[in-house]
């Protein structure tokens, strides 16, 4: 790059000491060029088992969207409004769909040994996501402000108190449980989902078992 006076000056965008350049470089290197939103896929991706990942993801979208609608009306809205109750029902059923599709996705990935080829972290983030999702649904049930919430709190407290966590995570405190449910745990689910998907796009869909034995 030349200045107006015609001298050569080092290109600012390639200065390796520049933090912005380094961050941009790291960011651009996360996924191979063209692989973030590719228009082609390996020919061996030819089974209905492959749709359960995107079904899980879209279920999560509906869970969050219906949750946002519930948040508009507040904690008690669905008890007094039939529209609110309908969105509560969508929230419940999209959660059931989310878990159902996620577990079928897990079964598929297990039988494909999808952790091969440097994909262990993809597998690990998936299992952690499963765990955090269970915690998110637990805090959701505790936020219902009805008989179920009372009973789940009364019973759940014993399990959590038994391991010493009850001193910090009080399932009998709906104020705390609701904030974990709508802020902290969805942030965790969201960030890990993003990481999980980046890893899938980064490494590509795992090749068939014994493909390495082909000529």
């Amino acid at each position, binding site marked *: 790059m030349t200045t107006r006076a015609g001298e050569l000056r080092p290109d600012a965008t390639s200065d390796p000491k520049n933090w912005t350049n380094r961050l941009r470089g790291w960011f651009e290197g996360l996924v191979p060029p063209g*692989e973030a*939103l*590719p228009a*082609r*896929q*390996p*020919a*061996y991706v*030819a*089974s209905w*088992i492959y*749709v359960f990942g*995107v*079904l899980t*993801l*879209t279920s999560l979208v*509906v869970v969050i969207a*219906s949750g946002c609608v519930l948040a508009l009306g507040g904690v008690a809205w*669905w*008890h007094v409004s039939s529209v609110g109750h*309908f969105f509560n029902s969508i929230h*419940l*059923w999209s959660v*059931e*769909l989310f*878990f159902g599709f996620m577990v079928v996705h897990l079964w598929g990935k297990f*039988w494909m040994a999808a952790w*091969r*080829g440097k994909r*262990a972290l993809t597998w*690990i983030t998936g*299992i952690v996501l499963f*765990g955090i999702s*269970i915690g998110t649904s637990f805090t959701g049930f505790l936020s219902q402000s*009805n*008989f*179920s919430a009372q*009973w789940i709190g009364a*019973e759940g407290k014993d*399990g959590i*108190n*038994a*391991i*010493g*966590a*009850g*001193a*910090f995570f*009080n399932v*009998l*405190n*709906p*104020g705390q449980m609701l904030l974990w449910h709508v802020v902290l745990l969805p942030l965790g689910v969201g960030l890990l989902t993003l990481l999980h998907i980046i890893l899938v796009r980064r*490494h*590509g869909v*795992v*090749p*068939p*078992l014994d493909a*390495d034995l082909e000529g």
Partner: protein
Amino acid sequence: MSRDRTPDSHDFPTRRYDLVKEFVIALVVVLVLSGALAAIFSSPDEKPITMSAWAKADPDNLITTAAGELAGTTTSAGYGAPYNTAAEGQKLGPLPLQKLGGVRIPINSADLVLGPLSNVSDNPVVNTALATWKAATPDQQTKWATAYTDAIGTAAADGAPATGAGGEVAKVKPGDYGPVPALSAGLLTLAKTGGLEGALTSSGNFYGGDQTKSLLLLADGAYLEDQAVAQNLAGDQWGMMNEVGNAPGQPWMWLYTFWYQVKPFSTSDNADAEVWGLMMVLTLLLMFLPFIPGLRSIPRWIPIHRLIWRNYYRSTKRA
């Protein structure tokens, strides 16, 4: 993993594919499914049990529970951390996990009764009883309350005979119970007015928001649990998986709740800590499966993958 010869997925033949269209189609499918399921099956919303409902449905049990809080014999009174130091709590092997959490939510069970009652200004019987209670020594207080709970007793159940008055407060024999009967009856009256939850949670701080005290008192009684057992929600009924009525619950909790149904957990005092410990180990095994020899080879031994990739195997055989 040094023998992992998995080739790069980018080295394979490809076909055209529309990622965004697939996402949109999946989103529409899920929206339609969720909407339809919501419209057809709705979602359960069983009203919470109020103190007033408990007081009206089972007044004897509320009085018994109140006396038990004063005697220090209820579940919450003898719980240990995080509420008090009355018990050691559960251990995982040698680790006193429950105690390690510390008493960070201090609850004095007697205060679950005395606190709300001390705000009552229009009941001279209750005021006198409170004064008598406060003036007595702790030993005397325990003596009165224990004598009263023993006198009320329990109904016959599971082959065990009835004790005391069989749980019926009206049939309690005269005895030296001090102010305990008046305090318990006072709490019942307060519960019936609908003001007990507020007295326990928002009195003094206006906003409330933390139902710990109300839920501990409710859970110390039998009414909440009776309603739960009737709906198959108890721990020994696989309750962790279930919901009220015919609603779907949390089927993914099946393995967590399974252990509670079988020995040694079903008869262990440390069942909660032990089941948690076991589930943590199993979760770690699942998480680190890629690194565990044997387990990670199961997909090779049981070749379900040959169904998934049958097109590929067929086409490479032909080539």
